[in-house]
């Protein structure tokens, strides 16, 4: 069924094409603008709920009586900013949660969220997003395997630093059959997360009375838990 039987002359002019295209651009962008205004608040609310659910997985609810998602502190380290969520009970920070990123198979990112209590012991680790091979590396998801639970209760002194590796590398953590790169990346990322906690402990725990550390560069040592940071508190 041919449609353009009759084509008025003005349709062949440049001005008509310009107006037509401009008109459609205006209409579509108006529609998008209106839709964005209508959905913006709801989408933000849904994302906040999702965050809350994720945080609840890594921090047991006996640790807090505040709203985890809104009590945050941003810590700037050399190359990036980390947003940490604080779990408070009676005003005291009992645990914090933040994202760490590992380099997975083929250089893709594995984003994890970890929960650490005020002593530096892991409360939970969950994979937030990753692009690991289905059937091999995706065993870091709780829906596929409970491997990631093996981090619960670990800290930088449990096991000792040289034990923070997969068994194949002489460490204490299991690797999966056929996949070493993914668990290795996760172990390294979680260890990095704990070192981050050790370095930024005072800021993370919102300790107003900052213990003055020796004037050496901050290093993630395990012995003295309260140390190093003299930066102004961002909270």
């Amino acid at each position: 069924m041919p449609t353009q039987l009759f084509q008025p002359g003005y349709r062949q002019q440049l001005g008509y094409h310009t107006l037509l295209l401009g008109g459609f651009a205006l209409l579509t962008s108006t529609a998008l603008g209106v839709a964005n205004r209508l959905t913006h608040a709801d989408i933000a609310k849904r994302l906040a709920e999702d965050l809350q659910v994720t945080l609840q997985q890594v921090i047991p609810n006996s640790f807090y009586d505040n709203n985890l998602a809104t009590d945050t502190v941003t810590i700037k380290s050399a190359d990036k900013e980390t947003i940490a969520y604080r779990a408070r009970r009676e005003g005291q920070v009992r645990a914090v949660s933040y994202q760490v990123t590992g380099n997975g198979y083929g250089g893709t990112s594995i984003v994890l969220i970890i929960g650490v209590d005020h002593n530096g012991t892991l409360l939970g680790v969950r994979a937030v997003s990753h692009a690991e091979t289905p059937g091999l590396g995706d065993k870091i998801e709780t829906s596929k395997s409970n491997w990631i639970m093996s981090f619960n209760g670990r800290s930088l002194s449990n096991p000792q630093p040289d034990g923070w590796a997969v068994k194949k590398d002489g460490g204490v953590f299991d690797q999966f059959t056929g996949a070493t790169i993914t668990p290795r990346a996760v172990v390294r990322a979680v260890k990095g997360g704990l070192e981050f906690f050790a370095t930024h402990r005072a800021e993370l725990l919102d300790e107003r009375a900052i213990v003055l550390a020796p004037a050496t560069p901050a290093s993630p040592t395990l012995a003295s838990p309260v140390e190093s940071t003299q930066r102004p508190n961002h909270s």
Partner: protein
Amino acid sequence: MTTDYRKITRDGLWDNNVVFTQMLALCPLMAITTTATNGLGMGLAVIAVLVASNLIISSCRNIITQEVRIPVFVLLIATLVTLADMIINAWLHELYKVLGLFIPLIVVNCSVLGRAEAFASQQPVPASILDGFMMGLGYTLVLVLLGGCREILGSATLFANASLLLGQSFAFLEITLIPNYKGFLLMLLPPGGFLVLGFLLAGKRVLDKYLQDKKARVSISVNTDAQSSRASA
């Protein structure tokens, strides 16, 4: 001139199927058909966008000129997909968690632009809506079929996580064929998708040829019957 709705339906589902015949939209096809449920989710999203885009483009077909049609179509389709993304995210968030991954993929689904160009820009609105729906349904069938084959071979389940997509009442669809199956990884990776698609395409050709031969044989035998009866008379 009347519109042949039966032909539109046949074309969409089989004769001019998006994947089997037009060979379009293969990129999202390979990417998501690791399970039948994923295929179904993507298919439903594509049906919605195809119907909406065909509807709008068909109703504007008389004011859109030949010279600027492609940018106008692209604008409209991109807007529709973004609107769908926002609306599902805001008000159907549970569904979004399952489908969210697929919605942006529709933008790169060239079958939407293909139908706008080949059909909706030249046909009246009701025919275009039907075409969008049938093309989308035909695509969904292939997605579910391919997803199902790969899922059965790759992980020995069928419709895993269907209840996340369709609600708890559809949990009965989730079937585990072989418990403790070790998995056949190749099928879940893109090469498995190409292999299965190849077999499906070959299967369709064989079936089409068989049907054609059968039809030809029937008409020949009818002819010879007619001749012999005339000869005897």
